[in-house]
């Protein structure tokens, strides 16, 4: 047992560092530094650089466009991208529907969709949650009725992240109304430009437009766009949920978050000392850093188990719970640092107001980010659901 990188790993790390330094889009870096909101094009700019290099989907099997990296290399990759403060790529295609398609899709589906996910030609969204069924996915009511070679889909989805940009969506729909709970659900790929689809924004507490309601009114979906068997969509959903929870720990990105807080707190003054010299603020940062180390080693142990051939099982719920709590604490500390300057609200300021010299740059979005981060313990299976999973699947209670 040891944590040392081999010489090959170290060389790989250098290669990654150099690549990022030379290829990360300058305009994207600029907007991040300013704290500006990112557009679809911003997200795609980095995606396309990686696609060109062949590094956009490290976790995929090589045959579908993956990198063939070892677990250690993938660990290095996520460490380095977080260290360089690269944006996170949108997960809906790369991390979610992509794996479902290569694991369960038809040859035609693989041939058509996977390359377009890799290239960034298709922007994906996820149609899971419904009003009245948040964490309780199995009770969904959106219906798909077979009509010739099509399904006719009616219903409503909600919390659909970035649906306003999406070309395609993957949806869970009920194909057997008489089956109970998880039975009778199918997994459909739906063209978001289909007639009958309407996307309505949901504005969240910080003023962000990230999520949407999606209304489906007699939307026709070719049967060839169903993944896996009819009424067996839950198999795809479960597969995806377990995979989602591993990534959701967000260790590398939270590490970067801790570094940012330390850097700010070291210069931000609290009377005649820096905020980081305030013993109680320092203690909170230290505790966070320690909890993050515990999470990191828990993830390493999970990854080691996966490398040894185990699937990421219900244990990944531990990663989701602690990972999301840590992400929230990061935003709490940033808001605490902002002091009085947590209160000014900047969204909607005129375009001529870009300099906004009100308080420190980093403080400008502290409160909205804190509000927004409350979602991390709610989405991806709420932390209550994760505890149910641990109680039932791990502890057998």
């Amino acid at each position: 047992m040891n944590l040392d990188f081999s010489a090959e790993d170290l060389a790989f790390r250098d290669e990654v560092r150099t690549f990022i330094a030379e290829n990360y889009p300058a305009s994207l870096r600029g907007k991040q530094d300013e704290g500006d909101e990112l557009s679809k094009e911003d997200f795609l700019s980095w995606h396309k650089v990686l696609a060109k290099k062949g590094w956009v989907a490290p976790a995929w099997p090589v045959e579908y466009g993956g990198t063939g990296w070892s677990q250690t290399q993938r660990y290095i990759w996520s460490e380095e991208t977080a260290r360089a403060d690269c944006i996170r790529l949108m997960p809906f295609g790369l991390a979610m529907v992509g794996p479902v398609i290569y694991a369960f899709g038809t040859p035609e589906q693989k041939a058509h969709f996977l390359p377009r996910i890799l290239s960034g030609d298709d922007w994906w969204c996820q149609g899971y949650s419904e009003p009245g069924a948040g964490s309780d996915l199995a009770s969904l009511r959106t219906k798909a009725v077979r009509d010739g070679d099509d399904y006719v889909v009616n219903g409503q989805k909600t919390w659909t992240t970035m649906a306003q940009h999406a070309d395609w969506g993957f949806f869970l729909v009920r194909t057997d109304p008489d089956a109970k709970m998880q039975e009778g659900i199918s997994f459909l790929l739906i063209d978001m430009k289909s007639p009958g689809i309407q996307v309505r924004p949901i504005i969240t507490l910080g003023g962000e437009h990230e999520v949407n309601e999606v209304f489906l009114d007699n939307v026709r979906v070719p049967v060839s766009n169903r993944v896996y068997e009819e009424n067996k969509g839950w198999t795809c959903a479960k597969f995806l949920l377990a995979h989602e929870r591993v990534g959701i720990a967000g260790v590398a990105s939270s590490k970067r978050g801790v570094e940012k807080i330390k850097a700010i707190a070291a210069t931000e003054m609290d009377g005649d000392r820096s905020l980081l010299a305030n013993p109680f603020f320092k203690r909170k940062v230290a505790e966070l850093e320690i909890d993050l180390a515990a999470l990191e080693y828990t993830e390493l142990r999970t990854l080691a188990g996966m490398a040894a051939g185990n699937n990421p099982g219900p244990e990944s719920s531990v990663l989701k719970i602690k990972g999301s709590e840590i992400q929230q604490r990061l935003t709490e500390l940033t808001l605490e640092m902002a002091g009085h300057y947590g209160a000014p609200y900047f969204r909607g300021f005129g375009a001529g107001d870009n300099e906004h010299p009100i308080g420190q740059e980093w403080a400008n979005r502290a409160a909205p980010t804190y509000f927004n981060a409350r979602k991390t313990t709610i989405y991806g299976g709420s932390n209550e659901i994760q505890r149910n999973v641990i109680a039932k699947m791990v502890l057998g209670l």
Partner: protein
Amino acid sequence: MDLSTTETQTMLRDTLARFLADTYTFDARQKMLASPEGRDPGIWRALSSELGLTCAPFAEEMGGMGGGAIENQIMMEELGKVIAIEPWVQTIVAGGGALKAAGGPLAEATIPAIIAGDCVIAFAYAEPQGRYNLADIGTTAKQDGAGYVLNGHKGVVYAAPWATHLLVTARTGGSRREREGVELFLIDAKAKGISRRDYPTVDGFRASEVYFENVAIPGEALLTGGIDLIEKVVDECTVAICAEATGIGRAMLAQTQDYAGQRKQFGQPISKFQVLQHRMADMLVEAEQIASMALMGTLRLDEPAAARKAAVSMVKAKVARSIKFIGQNAIQTHGGIGITVELAIGHYFKRATMIENQFGSADYHLERFEALTYAA
């Protein structure tokens, strides 16, 4: 020992509650926030000249009802229940409180105007570099003949865009963070040399950065009392927002109970899940403790400075943590809908979050409490 309220106090509460129930619906409040001015000035007019509530905490010889901290507590609790964005803390508690304490001709002239609703005050005490240290003041008030000349920058001045007057802390002498030389002034908000940068705040108020450039003010603008007076006024404001938190906390709990009773998952209302039941029980425990601490703060405001400051810091430290607990768990229990602008709960959460740090964070107050209580 007597914890009962008078009939007049009960009447005040009922009057305000009834008025707010009619005027401060969720939709009405959202409309106020979205309006150019960011509020409905008619409400303040109604609270003052129509309902006569603004007179409650002032002495009878000033046209008031002879009340004080208890009346402010009652009003703030009710304003909290509807997350009102009225400048009660700034105008009545800070401005009115400072004038009451300082007395003299300025008080005699201004308090009736406050009661009548003609004078709205913003409290410009914070500076960008100072965090919560009330003596960390760079704004200067240089003596100039009988008057003073103000220069400096005050940060995040709640209600400044609405104010007729500014209650400003400035330094007549001494160096940064020295207690000596910090004084309190009440000045015309339109005085020459004052400029503002206005913005909304995350909790629905309007606020400003206020800049003073050679602002000439008369000598009578000085409210004698120095940093001791400023601390007393800020303590009164602190207790007032803790009373506001009582209303907010209880409202968040009630909304969460209500939502949990209606929202179904896995075939039953989520209020039937024991984990959520215990969570709401814990929210009630915290809400009760906020009420208890707001009461303690109110009753101990008249104690000598050291005891008062220690008590108020205990109150704020506890309230900051309890209201955070209630807010975060209210949102978590609501799930996704809780973090949208569509339900009221999210807006309560935003105000609750700002209360945590307003007039000093939990850490600031813990440190002040310790410094006063545990001799090194």
